[in-house]
Each structure stands twice: as structure tokens, then as C-alpha cells.
């Protein structure tokens, strides 16, 4: 519980400390020190009413001590560099920071992590580490890559931020649209990592999904007239609104068909629908808006049978023209199967078999297995379920696939 609080608040505290100390490394060190104090004292004294403010104050004092010690050792030039940070740290108040200041700090950190001068693969890893407090090991599991590779990628990105002079601020208005793509992509990946864990024991990590939604909201506040920004928030709200009851009492994932739709968050769905309409009226439907529209059609439908599948296929056609990825094609095949029957969906999937990434993606095999099952091709369906299991999905998906395999095998 305490670890959880620290992780949830950590990103915000780190963002403020980076501004105060002028260095990401110093901020991380100070936060690390403060966390050690918290782990020692909170179990005894209880979690403070405002954990973020508590952590910020303790970390700020730690950073100040550290800088003063460093300054005593160092030559005068180094002292001059530190002087600014010492002033910032010493002058900062112990009072909790006003909400707007914290949010501004957080946005700065988001844009720093997503700077286009950093390798795209490093941006997401860095954001998961700094904004969501995931460990290198957790990120490595999410990306199915060795922990050492992820560690190196993060260390390199941090070294480059410091050495290359990547600024810690929200870019000028003129540069914002250019920078936005990278930021939206990172928030989207943060969400999907939380919404559907690529690996591990749980199907979803609600805290990560919530953090992504908070960030998407901040971006909409920053750029209220950017349709893709609004589209992303709508997409995340609609998808997250359906997260209740995604896993049943036995730990099995509940399919959309079996979902208890009364447990879905109606307020979030209403907001998502309103935002999607608002974004689409701007007349430039980008990938996030289209995905939001698709997600909303699922969220407002009374059942799978009563879902507006023809409209969903149409939206996937538009999406495919802008985002011709394997995932979009597989999802479109699912929608086509609902309109024209499972055989039509299967034909589309079979055409994707040689696409890069298809064979190692459990969902490709799982969708194919389901359609094969529905056309009565039990032997082929069993083979496809086995292929899906061979891709090592998360534990919940694995159990589901095993049950289905048992039914057809």
C-alpha cells in the first residue's frame, strides 16, 4: 500500500524536483532518499495526509544537503553552476504546491521524455520509468526485452538529456503540434501497458491506465482545440470505462460478449462520446479520433449483437488508410466477421499470416482460433490456440486460451 502510494505520487514529485534541482539525476537521487525515509517512517507514523507534499519537502532538503556537501568539495566553477539550484531549493516553501504548478512540472517532464532527439524506443521506456515509476525489470517484461537492454536505453536517454541540452520545458506554441505526436504516442502506450498487460500475472494495471488518462487530460487542457488530443482522451476514457468486471471470479477474462454492461462507468462513456463528437466536428479525423469513435460504439451498445458493426467496419476502413498496422487489420477482420460472418473474417486474417509480427503475437492466433471455432474447424482451431499459447501471453489470457483449447481439442 505504501509502495503503491509512493509509485503513484512519485512521477509528480520527481517532476517538481527536476525543476528545483535543474537536473534529472539529482532529482532521482533526492526522491530515492526521501522514499527510504518514507518507508522507515510511514509504517510507524502513518501515511501523511498529502504524501506528495511530504515527499517533495523531504527530497528537497536531501537535495539541498547533497548540493552543499558537493559545493564544499568542488571548485568554484562547479559552485556557480549549483548556486541556482541551491537558491531554488532553499527558497521553495514547505507548503503543498498549488495544483497548477505540479501539473506544469508534470507536463515539462512529459515533453522532456518525449523529445524527438531521443530514440523513439527510449522515450516510452523513460516515460514508464520516470512518470509511472515502473522498475527497469517491469518495463523489460512489458516489452519482452532483456532487462539489461532497457536499463541501457534508459541510462543513455538520461545521459543525452543532460549532455545534449534537451530542455525541461513545454515547447513554444509554434513547436507544439510537431512535438505532440510523440507525446500522444507515449501516453497511448502507457495506457495500453496498463489496460492490457503484455505479460505478468494481471490482465490490467489500473493505476497505470489512470495515470495515462490524467496525462491525456493535461494535454487537452494545454491544447483544447487539437482534435487528436481530444480524441486520445476520449479513447482512453471509453476503453477504461469498460474495465470493471473484465476478469471474472475465477480469474478468467470476460469477453465483450459476456460483459456485465451495467458495471461500466456510464459517466466516463458519456464524456467520451461528447469529446469524440467534439473532436470529429473539427473535420480532420486522425487515428486517435477514429479509434475513440470505434471504442464509443462498443461502449454505448446494449449487447454485442446490437452493436453497430457496419459502422465499425467503416471506421476501420478510414483508420486503415491512416494507420495501416497489423493490429488495425486484425481488429478490422474481427468487425468484418460480425457483419459478413466468420469465414469472411478468416479470409482477411489468413492474408495477414506472413505480416511481420503476426506469428509471434498471441492475439493474432487467438482471434483466428475463435473464428475457426465458429466455422466448426475444430482441429485447426485447436492448433491456432496452441500457437497463441506459445506466444506466452499474460496469465489471465493464458488461462482463457487453455479453457478454449480444452473445449475444441
Amino acid at each position, binding site marked *: 500500500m505504501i509502495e503503491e502510494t509512493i509509485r503513484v505520487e512519485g512521477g509528480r514529485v520527481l517532476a517538481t524536483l527536476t525543476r528545483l534541482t535543474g537536473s534529472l539525476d539529482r532529482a532521482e537521487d533526492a526522491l530515492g532518499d526521501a522514499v527510504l525515509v518514507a518507508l522507515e517512517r510511514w509504517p510507524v507514523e502513518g501515511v501523511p495526509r498529502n504524501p506528495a507534499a511530504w515527499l517533495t519537502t523531504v527530497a528537497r532538503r536531501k537535495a539541498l544537503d547533497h548540493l552543499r556537501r558537493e559545493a564544499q568539495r568542488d571548485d568554484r566553477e562547479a559552485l556557480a553552476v549549483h548556486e541556482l539550484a541551491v537558491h531554488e531549493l532553499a527558497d521553495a516553501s514547505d507548503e503543498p504546491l498549488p495544483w497548477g504548478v505540479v501539473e506544469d512540472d508534470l507536463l515539462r517532464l512529459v515533453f522532456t521524455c518525449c*523529445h524527438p532527439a531521443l530514440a523513439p524506443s527510449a522515450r516510452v521506456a523513460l516515460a514508464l520509468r520516470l512518470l509511472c515509476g515502473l522498475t527497469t525489470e517491469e518495463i523489460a517484461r512489458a516489452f519482452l526485452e532483456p532487462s539489461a537492454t532497457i536499463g541501457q536505453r534508459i541510462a543513455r536517454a538520461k545521459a543525452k538529456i543532460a549532455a*545534449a541540452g534537451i*530542455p525541461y520545458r513545454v515547447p513554444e506554441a509554434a513547436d507544439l503540434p510537431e512535438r505532440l505526436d510523440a507525446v500522444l504516442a507515449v501516453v497511448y502506450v502507457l495506457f495500453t501497458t496498463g489496460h492490457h498487460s503484455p505479460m505478468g500475472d494481471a490482465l490490467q494495471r489500473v493505476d497505470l491506465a489512470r495515470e495515462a488518462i490524467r496525462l491525456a487530460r493535461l494535454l487537452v487542457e494545454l491544447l483544447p482545440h487539437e482534435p487528436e488530443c481530444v480524441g486520445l482522451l476520449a479513447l482512453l476514457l471509453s476503453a477504461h470505462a469498460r474495465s470493471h468486471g473484465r476478469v471474472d471470479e475465477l480469474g478468467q477474462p470476460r469477453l465483450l460478449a459476456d460483459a456485465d454492461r451495467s458495471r461500466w462507468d456510464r459517466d466516463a462513456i458519456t464524456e467520451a462520446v461528447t469529446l469524440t463528437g467534439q473532436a470529429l466536428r473539427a473535420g480532420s479525423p486522425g487515428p486517435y479520433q477514429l479509434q475513440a469513435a470505434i471504442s464509443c460504439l462498443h461502449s454505448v451498445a446494449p449487447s454485442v449483437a446490437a452493436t453497430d458493426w457496419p459502422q465499425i467496419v467503416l471506421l476501420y476502413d478510414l483508420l486503415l488508410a491512416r494507420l495501416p498496422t497489423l493490429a488495425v487489420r486484425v481488429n478490422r477482420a474481427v468487425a468484418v466477421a460480425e457483419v459478413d460472418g466468420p469465414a469472411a473474417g478468416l479470409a482477411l486474417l489468413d492474408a495477414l499470416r506472413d505480416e511481420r509480427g503476426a506469428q509471434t503475437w498471441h492475439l493474432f492466433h487467438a482471434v483466428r482460433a475463435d473464428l475457426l471455432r465458429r466455422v466448426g474447424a475444430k482441429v485447426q482451431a485447436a492448433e491456432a490456440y496452441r500457437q497463441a499459447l506459445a506466444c506466452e501471453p499474460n496469465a489471465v489470457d493464458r488461462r482463457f486460451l487453455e479453457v478454449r483449447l480444452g473445449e475444441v481439442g
Partner: protein
Amino acid sequence: MPQFIALIYEPATARISPDNPQFASYMQAYNEFGAVAGHAIRGGAALDVPQHATTIHVEGGREGRVVMTDGPFAEGKEFLGGFYILEAEDLDAAVALARHIPAAWRDGGRVEIRPSMPGM
């Protein structure tokens, strides 16, 4: 008098950072060069390592959009055509200037931005 630019290439393993105790002897040899050629040296700078480089290209001509990539420029048919030393507050400010260098927006051109070596 004609001017010549001497470009310095060294293996990645040869670079020693200023906080390494061996840095002084690494630099000593450069200082000796300075003593020999000082009368002719008109300028120069030490560059930070290529891992800290950013390469930019302005897509769609002079007024187009800046595309940044992490890392140094990998030479192909292009050749090193010159250099500027730019003073700028941070990388964004440096890019805002460097995007106007014709090689950044002319077909096939690229501009690599490297910080100067820290502590020098």
C-alpha cells in the same frame, strides 16, 4: 592566406572524459600541438561524444518541418561540407537556428548537432 579546416577523428575508445585522472595527459598532447601551430590556429572546438548527437533534416524544403533523429549522421554519398559553432541556450534553441542552414533543408542534406565537450 588560404584557410584549412582540420577535422579530428578518433576511435570511440580513445575518448577520455574530463573527470578521468588521465584526462590531463590526454589533453597535454593537444596543448603541445597548440604550441607548434598556435600562430596559425584561427578557432576550433572539442566535441562531445557521438552518442549525444542529434541529426536534423527539414522535410519539405526551407519552410518545412524539422525531423530529428537520435545519434550522429551516418555518412553515405554525402560529405562533410563545413561547420558552424552556434551559441544557444539549449538543444531546442540550437535546432531553431540550425534548421536554417541550407544543408538542413536542401535535398539529401543533413545537419548533425553535437554539444561541445563539457568542461572545456
